[in-house]
């Protein structure tokens, strides 16, 4: 099984950390994973994107043209990247900051949730990436919350480990949205 995921938002939404976290958790589960941050001029302009591929086999391309899933955290990302999602795929859209106003081109499932508000509810708008991680893990059934929690310890710098309980709460809040 191979899952590919494209994540986009603006700087400060934790896009790169989210990709890193999901890929790391997959590694901890004994899967193969690649995490490819697209940086460059775009990043300077405030946009951040990354691609994560998780597979039971060797990961072939870390670069994906049409991903099976996208997490789109702001309006610009939604407009630019939603049309790239493969037919049959799905997208998680942050409805707090973005709404779908272009005609949909491919048959995909769009899960629009107020991620920023949910994050604020947990305690901080910057937790938007972790709420998204919880949702993605549960919906894709690719990763357990336990491995995400372990991965958090790896991807967060030591000085931020004190935020781990709050991060875990955000993960759980996201996951719960799918369970219900």
């Amino acid at each position, binding site marked *: 099984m191979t899952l590919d995921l494209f994540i986009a938002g603006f700087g400060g939404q934790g896009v790169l950390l989210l990709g890193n976290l999901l890929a790391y958790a997959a590694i901890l589960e004994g899967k193969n994973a*690649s995490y490819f941050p697209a940086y*460059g001029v775009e990043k300077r302009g405030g946009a951040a994107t990354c691609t994560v591929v998780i597979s039971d086999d060797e990961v*072939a*391309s870390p670069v994906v*043209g049409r991903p099976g899933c996208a997490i789109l955290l702001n309006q610009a990302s939604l407009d630019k990247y939603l049309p790239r999602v493969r037919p049959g795929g799905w997208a998680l859209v942050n409805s707090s900051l973005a709404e779908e106003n272009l005609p949909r081109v491919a048959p995909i499932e769009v899960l629009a949730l107020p991620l920023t508000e949910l994050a604020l509810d947990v305690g901080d708008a910057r937790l938007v990436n972790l709420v998204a991680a919880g949702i993605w893990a549960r919906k894709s059934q690719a990763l357990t919350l336990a491995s995400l929690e372990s991965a958090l310890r*790896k991807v967060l710098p030591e000085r931020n480990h004190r935020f781990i309980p709050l991060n875990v709460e955000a993960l759980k809040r996201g996951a719960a949205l799918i369970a219900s």
Partner: protein
Amino acid sequence: MDQRLFVKGNEAVAMGALAAGCRYYFGYPITPQSDIPEFTARELPRLGGTFIQAESEIAAINMLLGASACGMRAMTSSSSPGISLKQEGLSYMAGSELPGLVVNICRSGPGLGGIDASQADYFQAVKGGGHGGYRLIVLAPHSVQEMYDLALLAFDLSDRYRIPAMLLGDSVIGQMKEALIPHPRAQVELPPKDWAVRGKQEGAPQRVVKSLYLGDGELEAHNWRLHERYALLEARETRWEGLHTDDAELLVTAFGITARIAKSAVRMAREAGFKVGLLRPVSLFPFPREAFRTVTLVTKKVLCCELNTGQMVEDVRLSVARDAEVYFYGRPPGAGSLPTPEEFAEQIARYCGGAA
């Protein structure tokens, strides 16, 4: 179970170099490879090694030359514009038969270009780069694990043949993260560095590390000697990876990150019923000429994919069987130029006559 780390390609290449016993790093910052000096600046002092942020890439390659002349395993890294500045030093190292590792996390050019992935330095890497008709050992990693593994191999080959080695990466391989299983360096027997300077002891022969040969016939003989060593390298140290080459009607070839993209494309095309295989050169110099010749005795169509407007394709054309046809598909590098597996798959369908 082996320890599985999750690291950037740039970190992996630095880890591999340290595992190879490299204790000297000299470099100058440039995106997208600065993780390498940042890693070595942190780790080398802990290992009793030396890290110097040089005043320029020119100084860095010459510091490498000096450390290598003393018989030490040493490295430098940079990205394309900085690699251009190192060409003088590389030529001197090649002429002085000094080993050493140079990592090029290739970015787009010409000139200042951009910082996106590129394979536009292929010619520069494999055809000599600097003046004087020398060659480097050029290895092209296509995964984070290979960044590590090939760093180890590069040092061994470089020491054995006394030819400087280059790892030709790109900004995707350098920046992406994957699992890495570190391992200690293989215990291979290497010739003693009985040429390294160390202070001439009483009665011992003087050791001189130099590239200047002015006596009648000396330089010609020196060049023939180098040439023979390059031939030996080709006979013994060519490396490549083949995938589904047995029944392929079309052979895709690519190196580095492009080979990863091509692997997905080949998988897609196979699922669609196309008989397509992949030949990935791991050593760009020596180039796997014989592998291309052998495969194309049967498979008559080759599609070469690169992140440039066509460079390796020239070596492919020189290598394939006479009646094989070679096609090219590539993109000049730059922001938004990264080709996708879907794009390569389309090209495969185009050249694979008669869809299944």
